[in-house]
């Protein structure tokens, strides 16, 4: 009985390793996908609403919906049509987030991206 328990205990190591490797691999894949290849910056003349739209689909649509109507998969984000706040405020919310409601995107999107996102949000009304 004691020997049997000992054998079963020794089988714990592969079990713990399998569990840790599986979750670790998932985490690693997410990190790789988040980092991705370093894009070559293109010369820009001003904020691009078109690029902002692509960024929106990538980072915001999950909560705000593909159409920015607040019907994302996560369902938490509000409708962003006809925002009655200034560009600086929109940029600040994207960069710093809203406590308990929206995460900060400062690490993911730099000033140029935020300007593009703001430009895109200005086009929807």
């Amino acid at each position, binding site marked *: 009985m004691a020997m049997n328990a000992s054998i079963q205990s020794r*089988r714990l190591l592969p*079990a713990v390793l399998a*569990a840790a490797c599986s979750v670790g691999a*998932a985490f690693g894949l997410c990190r790789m996908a988040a980092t991705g290849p370093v894009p070559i910056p293109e010369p820009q003349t001003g904020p691009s609403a078109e690029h902002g739209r692509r960024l929106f689909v990538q980072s915001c649509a*999950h909560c705000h919906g593909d159409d920015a109507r607040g*019907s994302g998969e*996560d*369902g938490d984000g509000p409708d962003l049509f006809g925002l009655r706040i200034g560009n600086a405020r929109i940029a600040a919310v994207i960069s710093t987030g809203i406590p308990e409601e929206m995460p900060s995107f400062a690490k993911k999107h730099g000033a140029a991206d935020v300007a593009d996102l703001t430009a895109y949000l200005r086009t929807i009304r």
Partner: protein
Amino acid sequence: MTIDPTTWSKLHGATTHFPIALMLVSAFCDGASLACGKADWQRALRSTATVTVVLGALGSYAAVATGLIVAKWQFWGHGTLLHHHQFVWPAFALMVGLATWRAAARFSPSRKPPIAYLILMVFAAALMSGAGYWGGELLNHG
């Protein structure tokens, strides 16, 4: 060739129910084997529990892969997705770990599984149910 964005969501829905159902069935079979008095029934229930937990663990990789694609590779996310993941990751780790333990230790169907295994299995089934609940919330409010 482009893939319809909803395809991954449908695939996640299709793959995710197998590990949930198989883990719950496995936990139920182990529980029923404790309550059942007939030795041949106990063996049958424990063998079923072994097969279902191993198949469920294998199936959970497909569910996790499609889920990560749907979630745009967010390991945690936020809001409802975060709640979903707070249950998914421990449930996934426990399911893979328990299935590996059960397969590696070759629990005899004529003996009771270790009490630690049974406790962790109940815990994993509860976590899996929570993951399923928050997954449903994502679907309903998405």
